[in-house]
């Protein structure tokens, strides 16, 4: 199967994307975002989860959570490129929300064959939020790495680096079992679940680690029975990486445009600083790298739908390119804003911190390239 020339980005998706962009521009302009997430600046502040549940409800009403849910489970069943376009807008607005976490959960659930998974997909389409609880304390991104055991119908252990955990209603927990990995749906309010918020650098997200103390995991919660969890995660993984890449591209574009605007207006030596090639050329390099990451992201999204056997390869490329540009763009945006860029009041730091988080989430560029090399040199 080959890809459509236009990445499958049709008029419906364009409308969805443009509506999303307008909504976030209206409801969460940068100054509002700063008030929402950056009111407290003390680096020793306690962990916080700053977001706007009303805005999230509007997003649910607009159908974002239905986009990736198949039609036979109550969703819109749109191509992945549609979800990527929304992730890009979320990144552009540095939106604090459970969108990315829930979307990642959705993509994993789509790879599970169970009735439990189908039911949860229905609930997600209706607005329930979810997040993946799949990472061990070491932070290893490999599928097999796991600090959680499923034993006699109960979960024991912990999951770390759970994204936007305080905004999620259901955990999709990866658990080791003698027959192989399982995936289990665990409502966060379940007895025995202890969610410990992390203090993190990124102000537009929350994160937690979760302790499971003999948490019941009955068959109705088994999204993927023991032995099938790894395959489901691995099939979904290219799509998950693609969404993170899309978030990076959106946030990166904000950094590019905001810094370019500063370079057009800030004057030194009686000229706008964009006159100087030490400002102009890094911005052009950033634009070029962003465009490559963005094109690769659409390509990976399209591959997920149209040539899934290639999706792993292209998703690694997209996340690798995006991780590099996340770091480079954050770096140049601060530097080229000069003293202003080093202040809390200038919103650049919000995006910089989101990008550093994005850069490392699910593996940085080096990590992705090592996996890509395994695929290309196999």
């Amino acid at each position, binding site marked *: 199967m080959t890809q459509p020339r236009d990445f499958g980005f049709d008029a419906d998706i364009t409308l969805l994307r443009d509506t999303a962009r307008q909504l976030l521009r209206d409801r969460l302009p940068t100054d509002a975002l700063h008030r929402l997430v950056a009111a407290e600046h003390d680096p020793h502040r306690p962990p916080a989860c700053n977001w706007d549940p009303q805005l999230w409800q509007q997003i649910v009403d607009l159908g974002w959570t239905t986009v990736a849910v198949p039609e036979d489970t109550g969703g819109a069943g749109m191509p992945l490129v549609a979800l990527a376009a929304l992730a890009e807008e979320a990144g552009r607005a540095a939106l604090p929300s459970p969108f990315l976490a829930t979307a990642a959960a959705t993509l994993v659930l789509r790879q599970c064959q169970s009735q439990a998974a189908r039911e949860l997909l229905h609930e997600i389409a209706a607005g329930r939020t979810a997040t993946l609880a799949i990472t061990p304390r070491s932070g290893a991104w490999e599928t097999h790495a796991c600090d959680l055991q499923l034993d006699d119908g109960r979960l024991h252990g912990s999951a770390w680096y759970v994204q936007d955990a305080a905004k999620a209603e259901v955990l999709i927990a990866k658990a080791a079992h003698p027959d192989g990995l399982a995936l289990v749906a665990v409502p966060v309010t379940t007895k025995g679940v202890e969610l410990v918020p992390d203090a993190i650098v990124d102000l537009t997200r929350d994160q937690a680690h979760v302790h499971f103390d003999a948490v019941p995991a009955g068959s109705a919660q088994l999204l993927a029975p023991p032995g099938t969890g790894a395959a489901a995660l691995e099939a979904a993984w290219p799509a998950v990486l693609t969404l993170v890449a899309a978030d990076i591209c959106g946030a990166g574009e904000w950094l590019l445009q905001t810094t370019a605007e500063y370079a057009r207006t800030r004057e030194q030596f009686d000229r706008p600083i964009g006159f100087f090639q030490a400002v102009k050329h890094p*911005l*052009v390099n950033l634009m070029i790298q962003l*465009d490559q990451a963005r094109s690769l992201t659409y*390509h990976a999204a399209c591959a997920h739908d149209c040539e899934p056997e290639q999706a792993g390869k292209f998703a690694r490329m997209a996340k690798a*390119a995006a991780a590099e540009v996340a770091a480079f763009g954050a770096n140049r945006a601060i530097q080229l804003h000069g003293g202003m860029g080093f202040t809390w009041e200038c919103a650049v730091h919000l995006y910089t911190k989101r990008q550093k988080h994005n850069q490392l989430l699910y593996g940085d560029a080096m990590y992705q390239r090592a996996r890509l090399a395994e695929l290309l040199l196999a």
Partner: protein
Amino acid sequence: MRLPQSAIELMHREQLEYLRDWQRQAYEAGLVGCDYPQASGGGGRSHCQRIANQEMQRAGRPFLPNILGLGMAAPTLQIHGNDFQRETLLPRLFSCADIWCQGFSEPGAGSDLANVQTRAERHGDGWRITGHKVWTSLAHFADWMILLARTDRERKYQGMTYFVVPISANLDETVRVRPLIKITGETGFNEVFFDGLEIPDHYRVGEIGQGWEVAQTTLLHERGGGPMVTPSSGHGGTPERALGDAYALLDLARRTPRGAGTAADDPVLRDRIMQLIIRQEGSKQGARRARVPALCDHPMRLALQPKLVMSEIRQDVCALAMEIQGAAASLSIGDAHAPDGGEWTLGYLNSYGVTIAAGSNEIQRNILGERVLGLAKSK
């Protein structure tokens, strides 16, 4: 016969004749110029050239030698030319009956192209051309040149006019071509001296004083961002992968011993190869995205990138190939033991032709920063 990697590396007439014959056959088969009107010798179709190119590339064909004509002269004449230029010159350009070259750069007008000093003076009903062009690829074979000349010394940008001028017909009379030697030791580009070449007025392209505007059409196509798709059939490398293609490094690394295994086992080399493959794939997908308006924020943003980006990728690919080869990269194309016939090292040296020519990459970055990001002009 060794075929060079691109037209600007053409040195010998034997190479030229082989390739000229291929372009003529491709033209006769309708694969060259198919998007141009039939009156211009084209196929009268639309959106066909890209498909023709893909088919020719897939078939592993060598490149079309009249590349400067196809990529720069043809779209400029089609858009700005008169009937003579379109109807008489273009069919011969497509069929490769005439070879074309480009006369823009001068010793004092490199990055500062608008500083051209070659003069075109009124002479009866026509013009007389006097001056000195440099870095003129294919001039030693060329029948025609697109020429940017000064018609008014008082004005910089409005003082230039665009012409087509006959080269081979006046060779060693009012036109002299002196080959320059490249850093590779190859010939292939030239200085061209005009000593009062006389041409009729219908060789003028566009209005007097509008040469800079006409040249923008040429340059836009040269950078890969123009409305007309350049006929392009392949390259001089293996049929599978052009030399200079990042994916070809995979095969090179697999074949090259290193330590107990091959260079493909070295994780640091693997990482660097992946970096280049990702950049190249990103650029390729960018060219695809450039044709999806909903995914382009600015009409020129992706259009102006290909020359800049691909020339640097190619340079970096060849440099990395040399690191993969290690000691063997010291061997030149004349050496029997040089891996891949020494083409990677030669390709590395030739890569600077593209990062410097056609507006150095420094100028390309200015153009992108100014036209797309709206930054103040650096000049």
